[in-house]
């Protein structure tokens, strides 16, 4: 079977099984792929520290502005979606609690919303360019 056909089959499977379990399964995979790509970029950007303080500060200066602060909110959303859903999967598996997996989904949704509200409050100063004038310590 060709890879494109397998992907098509996956899409049909998602379309036929519109439920919380399938939704969170794909959310987990997509956030996982996104976070893995971010991890590689994160290590790459920070590796500028190998070149010393000047090269690190130059590189970090390029990724610290309101645009990246908004992207950082998306990153944190991805981390917590993946983390909370991962804990949900682990609890469901290790404690044989598959009957409660939907309840757990709504519990993690509430926790996720609370975390994201806190994230927005904490990130707020980073959304404004005037706060980036300080050169650090």
């Amino acid at each position, binding site marked *: 079977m060709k890879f494109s056909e397998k992907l098509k089959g996956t899409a049909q499977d998602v379309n036929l099984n519109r439920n919380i379990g399938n939704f969170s399964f794909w959310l987990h995979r997509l956030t*996982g792929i996104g976070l893995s790509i971010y*991890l590689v970029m994160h290590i790459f950007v920070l*590796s500028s520290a190998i070149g*010393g303080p000047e090269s690190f500060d130059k590189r970090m200066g390029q990724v610290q502005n309101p645009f990246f602060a908004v992207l950082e909110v998306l990153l944190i959303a991805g*981390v917590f979606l993946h983390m909370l859903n991962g804990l949900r999967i682990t609890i469901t598996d290790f404690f044989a609690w598959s009957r409660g997996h939907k309840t757990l989904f709504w519990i993690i949704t509430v926790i996720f919303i609370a975390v994201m509200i806190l*994230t927005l409050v904490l990130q707020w100063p*980073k959304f404004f360019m005037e706060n980036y004038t300080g050169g*650090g310590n």
Partner: protein
Amino acid sequence: MPQKAASQSLVPWLLQRITGLFLAFFLVTHLNVHHLFHDITVEGIISFALVQERLTASFWWQVYYFLFVPMVVYHALNGIWEIIADFRVSTGWSFLFKAMFWILGIVLIVVAAITLSNLF
């Protein structure tokens, strides 16, 4: 004819769960210190000096990153591999992906280790 199992072994599956549980702790700490509770109005933008100051505040940060980096790299690459394996790729592709992920994983850990040694 029975189809080949998507995942060959219990060990990677279990390791994914174990590293996942550790990462829940490591990531909340890492995000709090370096992303969320970084108050730009007080500390200014992130600089080499600021990161060095944070990381040398306690010896335990060395232990922390020594465990955190390999775990997060393993979890990420094994996770991607699990997704690929679910599509039941051929033996040749499977070997190619595994080789690629092993090389990428080792490179990422080595680069991260050299980076951190410059900051500690």
